């Protein structure tokens, strides 16, 4: 396939459709469609702190110290889902809700047994279909509903935050049902309606939710065929389903989904189990999957009609604000709420340190909060600052900084290297800040909010308010992105507290400053690496320790002789959690930077050095593709003043990526990324348009923490609280982009929301070295202080 790369910026970003031929999709300009993805980071699982998760997993056992091992049966995708949910549902400090003294009486007032089931399919799910859970629903009716108008409504517990799930699920159902996508309607993440498909994390929707949706749709398709065969008294083999209807092979008679839905038997038939034997469409016969289907609700996005969580309005609704501490760990000692109470229309609630105000307008609520904030007295405690962060993390590493066990290899090596790498805290800062609208009605709590974990937030609410699950409904409208930052339900709980106090629905939307300060962060990393080379430039040992940031992509994909890669906890000064790609960015930044250092020590070209240590054919393919399309050999040799080229590769979550970049050092000694050539492979491509957007979005998003984004804090106070001081990528940061999607129809589809972000930072650092001969081992990568 011909590389369409061009130096003409307009052509690079301009129109033109994505080309698919052979196995590589090369397109400087992404094709049509919609998407972005969300994700996490990992911490030591705490079964002790989260007993309900272990219980839910069923066949699990505690090994003490909070470790849980699942007895995996069959190693299915669904078991993977459980493991992923465990991995991602691990924030540092689970919020312990213990407020309100009259819980018991409150429950008594509510009475028991009011069920929020509002649809026949959900009822079926309750009665016989199983509750779902990460294993998904058992019955067809819990997954899809066939309307008498022929519209097929598919229900799914995953969320849409821009990553493209809605389009992919629609395609999955349409493909197996043999209907156009316009005949499929998706209901996502309304806990009153949909099955629990687990959290929307870990690039999991494509590998773990698309298959069960396909299976349910294929089961429904078979039902239609069986039903038609029976009705016509013909052999089942003489009926095929195509163009939205069952057709007798002689071609005379047809029966549509609408016809089926109108029959008396439909409800009973749909209430049967999803058949594991219903045949899925092979990739070679895909007509809807594998195509660049647009996000189904695109029109509502461009007209402003779509209601994001922060747009939801309920009758009589008030706007709420919550008092925040001036710094982490500060405790409220006193406050005078009288000035707010004196304001016309303002409602104030105080429950120990939780202070909230509500008013008919958010401006008035803010004025009321300002008035009482001035009277608040706080007891602060000393906290670390970002200046001392990395020493602090090392000092507090659990078990200390682990020693290299391969001292023998080091002593007999031709060359040995040891270096420290660092990654600063980053913030997701999705454009829609955390938001929730809560409404209590007849003892029922409904919350509209943005979260990647709707059923988890429902659990949080039941714990917080001591009410049964069937009294809580969490609805997640398609929301303004997360990138791993919206796993928790703190905003939902706050809004519900305010609504309870006001006796009216309350909308709570965090400010940008709150989002920068009180949302959790991508963890900072302190990484130590030591490796040895023999006289032939081959790696003989490798010792790698990640302190604080996580174990994602911890293991090296290279052949590295004796090796040990470890992750150790520290005592993080900030509340940290998931972020697109988890620690795979930090671990690839350190590993790929260090591989470059080792290549230089061995006197080898960075590409040759990597390939000499790399066997994995999928990773080799993307690395070679990116290098070839970029013209690595020539560009690495021919150095131009103020320009540099670098490369990096890596694998995570079952997908493979490599990036070659060209950077420029400006007169002001700033680094500017001029060109990124990235190859990416994630098995069979489900939606090339959406995939393109995931990949280019990840690359550009990754430039932020690579070059500029850094959370600065002093004594527990976050100093980067606006887009002025925390500078995310903008139009001016857009480099020339060549994206090469390697399609592997022979392999299962993996998710793509995260992995495309992991190579950009190390490739930039390596390009800086190529340009000015200086190794920068910290993110953000800067030549100036």
């Amino acid at each position, binding site marked *: 396939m011909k590389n369409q790369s061009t130096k003409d910026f307009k052509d690079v970003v301009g129109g033109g459709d994505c080309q698919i031929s052979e196995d590589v999709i090369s397109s400087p300009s992404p094709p049509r469609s919609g998407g972005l993805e969300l994700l996490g980071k990992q911490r030591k699982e705490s079964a002790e702190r989260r007993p309900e998760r272990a219980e839910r997993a069923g066949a699990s056992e505690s090994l003490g110290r909070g470790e849980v091992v699942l007895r995996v049966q069959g190693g299915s995708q669904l078991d993977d889902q459980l493991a992923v949910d465990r991995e991602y549902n691990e924030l540092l400090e689970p919020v312990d809700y213990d407020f309100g003294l009259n819980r018991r009486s409150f429950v008594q007032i509510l009475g028991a047994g009011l069920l929020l089931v509002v649809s026949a399919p959900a009822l079926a799910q309750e009665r016989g279909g199983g509750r779902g859970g990460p294993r998904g629903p058992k019955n067809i009716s819990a997954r899809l509903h066939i309307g008498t108008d022929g519209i097929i409504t598919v229900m799914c517990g995953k969320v849409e935050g821009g990553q493209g799930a809605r389009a992919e699920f629609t395609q999955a159902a349409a493909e197996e049902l043999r209907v156009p996508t316009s005949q499929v309607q998706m209901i996502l993440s309304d806990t009153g309606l949909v099955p629990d498909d687990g959290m929307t994390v870990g690039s999991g929707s494509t590998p773990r939710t698309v298959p069960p949706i396909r299976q349910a749709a294929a089961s429904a398709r078979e039902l239609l065929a069986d039903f038609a065969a029976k009705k016509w008294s013909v052999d089942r083999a003489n009926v095929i389903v195509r163009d939205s209807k069952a057709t007798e092979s002689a071609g005379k008679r047809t029966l549509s989904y609408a016809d089926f839905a109108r029959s008396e038997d439909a409800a009973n038939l749909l209430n049967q189990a999803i058949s594991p034997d219903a045949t899925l469409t092979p990739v070679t016969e895909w007509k809807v999957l594998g195509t660049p289907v647009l996000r189904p609700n695109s029109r509502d996005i461009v007209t402003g009609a779509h209601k994001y969580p922060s747009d939801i309005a309920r009758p009589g609704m008030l706007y709420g604000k919550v008092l925040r501490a001036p710094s982490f760990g500060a405790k409220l000692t006193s406050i005078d709420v009288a000035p707010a109470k004196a304001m016309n229309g303002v409602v104030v609630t105080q429950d120990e340190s939780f202070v909230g105000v509500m008013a008919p307008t958010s401006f008035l609520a803010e004025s009321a909060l300002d008035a009482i904030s001035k009277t608040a007295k706080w007891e602060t405690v000393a906290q670390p600052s970002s200046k001392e962060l990395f020493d602090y993390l090392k000092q507090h590493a659990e078990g200390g900084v682990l020693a290299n066990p391969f001292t023998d290899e080091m002593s007999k090596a031709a060359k040995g290297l040891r270096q420290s790498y660092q990654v600063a805290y980053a913030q997701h800062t999705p454009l829609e800040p955390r938001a929730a609208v809560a409404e209590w009605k007849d003892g029922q709590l409904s919350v509209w909010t943005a979260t990647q974990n709707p059923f988890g937030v429902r659990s949080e609410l039941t714990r917080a308010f001591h009410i049964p699950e069937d009294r809580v409904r969490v609805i997640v409208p398609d929301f303004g992105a997360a990138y791993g930052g919206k796993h928790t339900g703190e905003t939902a709980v706050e809004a519900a507290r305010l609504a309870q106090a006001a006796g009216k629905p309350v909308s709570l939307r965090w400010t940008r400053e709150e989002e920068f300060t009180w949302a959790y962060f991508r963890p900072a990393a302190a990484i130590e690496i030591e490796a040895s080379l023999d006289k032939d430039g081959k790696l003989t040992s490798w010792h790698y320790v990640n302190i604080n940031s996580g174990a994602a992509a911890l293991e090296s994909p290279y052949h590295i002789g004796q090796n040990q890669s470890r992750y150790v906890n520290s005592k993080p000064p900030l509340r940290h959690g998931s972020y697109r790609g988890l620690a795979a960015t930090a671990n690839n930044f350190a590993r790929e930077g260090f591989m470059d250092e080792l290549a230089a020590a061995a006197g080898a070209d960075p590409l040759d050095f990597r390939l000499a240590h790399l066997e994995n054919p999928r990773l080799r393919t993307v690395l070679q593709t990116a290098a070839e399309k970029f013209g690595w050999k020539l560009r690495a040799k021919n150095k131009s003043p103020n320009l540099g080229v670098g490369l990096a590769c890596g694998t995570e979550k079952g997908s493979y990526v490599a990036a070659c970049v060209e950077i420029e050092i400006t007169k002001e000694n700033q680094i500017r990324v001029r060109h990124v050539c990235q190859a990416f492979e994630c098995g069979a491509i489900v939606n090339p348009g959406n995939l393109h957007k995931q990949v280019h979005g990840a690359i550009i998003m990754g430039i932020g923490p690579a070059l500029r984004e850094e959370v600065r804090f002093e004594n527990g106070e976050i100093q980067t609280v606006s887009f002025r001081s925390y500078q*995310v990528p*903008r139009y001016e940061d857009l480099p020339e982009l060549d994206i090469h999607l390697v399609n592997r129809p022979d392999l299962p589809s993996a998710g793509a929301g995260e992995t495309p972000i992991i190579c950009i930072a190390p490739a930039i650092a390596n390009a800086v070295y190529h340009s000015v001969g200086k190794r920068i081992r910290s993110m953000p990568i800067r030549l100036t202080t």
Partner: protein
Amino acid sequence: MDATITFTVNGKSRTVTTDPKRPLLDVLREDLQLTGTKYGCGEGQCRACTVLMNGKSVASCITAIADADKQSILTIEGLANGDKLHPVQQAFMDEGAFQCGYCTAGMIMGTVAMLKDIPKPTDADIVSRMNRHICRCCSYPKYMAAIHRAADQTRKEAA
């Protein structure tokens, strides 16, 4: 002290009696239920809240409602002509330009204003004019393509 503000929103005359210091954004969203215009930062740094005031792009989060008195405001809800999308909306949709879509309304309104001044923008023009708009999903390449498509379409319709 409340003030009475009369202004035109999407071609209709509207009157609100409210605190004149309230941001135009809040009045649009909370009083007029025009929630297509988004809050992103509250300080004019991200432009998710962009609306047109007398045809010019403004950040409604830092525009006091008092300053909108007797002015004409166009929001994303007022852009389409019945069922027919504005060429910029159509281009953004055809291109599948957005990911989460939260910045899209602001991006579209900013584009409408830009194309009035520069009917055939270069990439450099787009970067210069649109740089104040943040897309956190970083769908900038698709937005660039959509803006060029919108410019072509607008010129075609004018011709």
